[in-house]
């Protein structure tokens, strides 16, 4: 602590005070960063401290400056000043005033790092250029303005909900549809700004004014989880709102849209479809509209089966309303067939589509509808691709399950006396014609055998036909087999006739030469003959 008298005496000696701000600080260069600018500004208002820093300590200052610095410190501090006598104080003020130092000073004197905070990437905002900083500030201001507007919207909607009158117009406050749209737009912008400024992302439901007031039921993730999936945030958010909506049993247009969103992200979700069905049912929405929507989903998710189960439920639900109107029934059947044809064009053997198709035929009684359109349509598909086994299976179903010409509850593998003989003939002929096109195609062979069993016919009935594909059996040189399936059927025909030796020859040749990849199987069959 300096002795009282001495410290004050010094200013007297220093009679020529030079205003340090003008002499020691050269005019500042254009700042390149925000931190630079901050530093320049602090230096501008603390010229003495800046001088101390530049000189590298008080002791390196010129005597006049050192005195001024010390006096300034005394002037700033009432505690220090109180230690001086009245005269010394007067001298002090005079000296300091003559130097005309800046009125304000700011602490800290030397800018610390990161006083402006970090941006979303972790970069110190202080390292921004002034232009960048200005742009950032502008965005922050914009966000604040939006926030204010958004709060105002919320308050206004709350007033509308409670039916409060506007004090100016005297009318009940109403929130128009376009205001909601504006708010949605506002939140989108706010989200974009937050993401840009702070890297904070709000989900699309949290942003949507339509979903205000719904508290999402988040997934309780925990330790020890198996098969955790790195799913997109969008999915996690949609699921949490779905859970909340299902728990509330909310059946509304917005939940209908939510189910659509979840279905698009995860069509195999096993309860969302039934929830969607509940919504349709509760809102009494028209089924054809839903089916139309489903068409698009089905086309983009060919391998999903929940879609078809949903369609199945929809048809069950819709059918009673059109059952007594043959025209409506026929028109619905036609539109369904059109769609099924469209989807089968893209994926000719789609299992779910074919299963649904047979359900539909039975449900709507499409057996002979529209001049046997179903059978003709399948026939056209077999014309396109004679190896389309799905089409073959469907043909068998359409022909042999038609209640007009079959017995209910007869198994597919059993004879049915109710099937007219001419139909059996027609189908045998059909299969034979297709076998000629591609003898090694198993589908029509299976079909042929199935038809014979249905008609209660002996397999031997087609022995002549089968023989066309197997020549000189057992003759190593001249043996000629055009279809292993023919040889297989021939084995069965011989076995049926009790000719075990010939049957064994067929099976042996199959294993040895004509179908060696099933060698073990043919040998087993041969062994069975002897049993």
């Amino acid at each position, binding site marked *: 602590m300096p002795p009282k008298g001495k410290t004050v005496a010094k200013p007297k000696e220093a009679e020529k005070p030079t205003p340090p701000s003008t002499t020691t600080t050269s005019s500042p260069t254009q700042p390149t960063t925000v931190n630079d600018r901050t530093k320049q500004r602090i230096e501008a208002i603390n010229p003495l401290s800046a001088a101390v820093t530049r000189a590298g300590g008080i002791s390196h200052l010129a005597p006049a400056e050192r005195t001024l610095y010390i006096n300034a410190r005394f002037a700033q501090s009432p505690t220090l000043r109180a230690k001086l006598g009245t005269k010394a104080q007067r001298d002090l003020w005079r000296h300091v005033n003559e130097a005309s130092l800046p009125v304000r000073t700011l602490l800290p004197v030397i800018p610390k790092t990161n006083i402006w905070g970090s941006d979303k990437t972790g970069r110190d905002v202080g390292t921004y250029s002034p232009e960048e900083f200005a742009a950032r500030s502008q965005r922050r201001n914009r966000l604040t303005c939006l926030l204010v507007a958004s709060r105002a919207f919320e308050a206004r909607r709350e007033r509308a909900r409670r039916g409060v009158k506007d004090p100016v117009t005297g009318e009940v406050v109403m929130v128009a549809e376009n205001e909601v749209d504006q708010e949605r737009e506002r939140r989108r912008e706010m989200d974009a700004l937050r993401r840009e400024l702070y890297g904070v992302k709000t989900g699309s439901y949290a942003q949507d004014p339509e979903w205000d007031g719904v508290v999402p*039921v988040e*997934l*309780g993730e*925990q*330790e*020890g*989880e*198996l*098969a955790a*999936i*790195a*799913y997109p945030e969008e*999915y996690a958010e949609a699921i949490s709102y779905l*859970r909340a909506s*299902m728990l509330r*049993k909310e*059946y509304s247009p917005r939940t209908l849209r939510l189910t659509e969103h979840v279905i698009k*992200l*995860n*069509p*195999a979700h*096993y*309860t969302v479809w*039934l*929830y969607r069905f*509940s919504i349709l*049912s509760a809102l009494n929405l028209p089924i054809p509209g839903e089916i139309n929507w489903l068409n698009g989903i089905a086309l983009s998710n060919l391998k999903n*089966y929940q879609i078809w*189960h949903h369609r*199945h439920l929809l048809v069950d639900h819709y059918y009673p309303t059109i059952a007594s109107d043959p025209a409506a029934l026929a028109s619905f059947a036609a539109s369904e067939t059109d769609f099924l044809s469209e989807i089968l064009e893209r994926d000719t*053997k789609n*299992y779910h589509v074919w*299963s649904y198709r*047979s359900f539909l035929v039975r449900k709507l009684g499409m057996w002979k509808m529209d001049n046997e359109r179903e059978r003709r349509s399948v026939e056209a598909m077999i014309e396109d691709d004679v*190896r*389309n*086994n*799905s089409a073959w*299976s*469907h043909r*068998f179903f359409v022909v042999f399950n038609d209640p007009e010409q079959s017995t209910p509850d007869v*198994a*597919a*593998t059993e004879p049915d006396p109710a099937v007219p003989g001419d139909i059996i003939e027609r189908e045998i002929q059909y299969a034979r014609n297709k076998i000629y096109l591609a003898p*090694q195609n*198993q589908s029509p062979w*299976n079909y042929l055998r*199935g038809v014979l069993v*249905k008609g209660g016919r002996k397999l031997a009935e087609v022995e002549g036909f089968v023989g066309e594909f197997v020549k000189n059996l057992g003759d190593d040189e001249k043996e000629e087999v055009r*279809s*292993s399936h023919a040889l297989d059927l021939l084995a069965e025909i011989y076995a049926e006739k009790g000719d075990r030796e010939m049957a064994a020859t067929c099976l042996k040749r199959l294993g040895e030469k*004509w*179908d*060696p*990849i*099933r*060698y*073990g*199987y043919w040998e087993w069959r041969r*062994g069975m003959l002897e049993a």
Partner: protein
Amino acid sequence: MADEPNDAHSRPLDKARHLKYWTRCLRSPLPHHYTPNDSNRIALAYFILSAIDLLHLSDPNSENDPKVRDSTLRLTPAERHRFRTWILSCQHAGGGFCGSPSMTLPSHSYGGWSFEDSKPTMGNPGQANIAATVFALILLALLADDETEACSAYSGVDRWKTLRWLRRLQRPDGSFGEILEEVEGKGLVIGGGKDMRYCYLAAMLRWMLRGDIQPGEPGWVEDIDVEGLVRYIGRSQTYDHGIAESSEHEPHSGYAYCAISALSLLDRPLDGGQHPHAALKTALPDMSSVVQWLVSRQFPYTDPEDPDNSEDEALQQTFTTLTISEPGNPVAFNGRCNKAADTCYCWWVCGALSVLPPLQPDGDNVATIIPRPEARRFILEKVQHIIGGFSKHPGGPPDLYHSYLGLAALATMGEPSLKEFDAALAVTSETAKKLVAARTGLISRTKKAGQPEGLGGKLLDMGVQVAGGKRPAWLEAL
């Protein structure tokens, strides 16, 4: 044709590579492509842990490859405990398990929940699912360190409620659905369509939990309609002797496996012993016709010349190439007549054949009629992926489903470096034994406790006691 699975044409199974694939699946999150499987994460967990089970011989010292011997995939007790807790957290208050945490509600949401009187109303995002239930029960047993530990694997499982729930999943025609859900305007709906997979899972669940408790004994739950189920499956045989989910649809290898295994499980002895195969013989009296359909699923595989035209290799085959194909060339399987090769059908077909009663006395059906070296070549040379695992089609990326079923197919073909496999349960024989131990433990605790497991059962018993201690007939009929 060579009979040994390890013939010179084929490389050995690189277990270390597969373990690497499964390590990634177990220890890091699955990529977002699996998002559509989010509702069935327990199924994914089953593929992962079962594959790891299959790849590790019981005795690490019998592994030749040091990388396999020192595999870090042998689970630690702490890990087993954590996984077990996670699986149990997916249990539904009304019985059964949900498929993933996203299908499970916070526990308070289930307050006052009761299937018996449908309170509070049932439609909700957290419903139990039959596949998840079966896979959860398999995992709980699989996670036990040994058979002794497996005895308590099902503590915490509500057997009584699960079996009651299972009964409600059965439709009047004998078939099963996958979920039970209340639908607006329709009441209680058995969801999930007609699907042979659910019938298989139902038979499996019954075999895993029901045990030998007799009517009148504590913990007895009325059985499902077994006859109805057998009848339903029997009627699903198609004109060409395959099996679909109905005789009116196209037959499919996957459904054939499910049908055959369901029938086999319906009268499978509870703990070993002679299998009568009575249900199988009732439903499918002409077993050889099913065998014929199954063996017809294999065909000689040739690489498609034009990669854009890879659909239906069988279609490209002319009869000439069929017959002159060199013995030893890969043999692939399809799911339906004239369809393309797919790894999983190697399993569905070989699995189905393994479950059928022996075609020859004491014979292994797959060894009897499948050309194993050639079938193995398809799996190891055409669909095995460089990063481990198997893809669906040659040239594709591996996925959990095909990677597990590819291993399962190899196991049914007798792959010596894999554990023995129980085809009907689709787990290793070691895990099958744990399943038996888990059930035995659960049943003996149920009998000892003198009352059914679970709060619902206990309350019901309390009610019965208060009313004079006699269970009225209507109660059993519920």
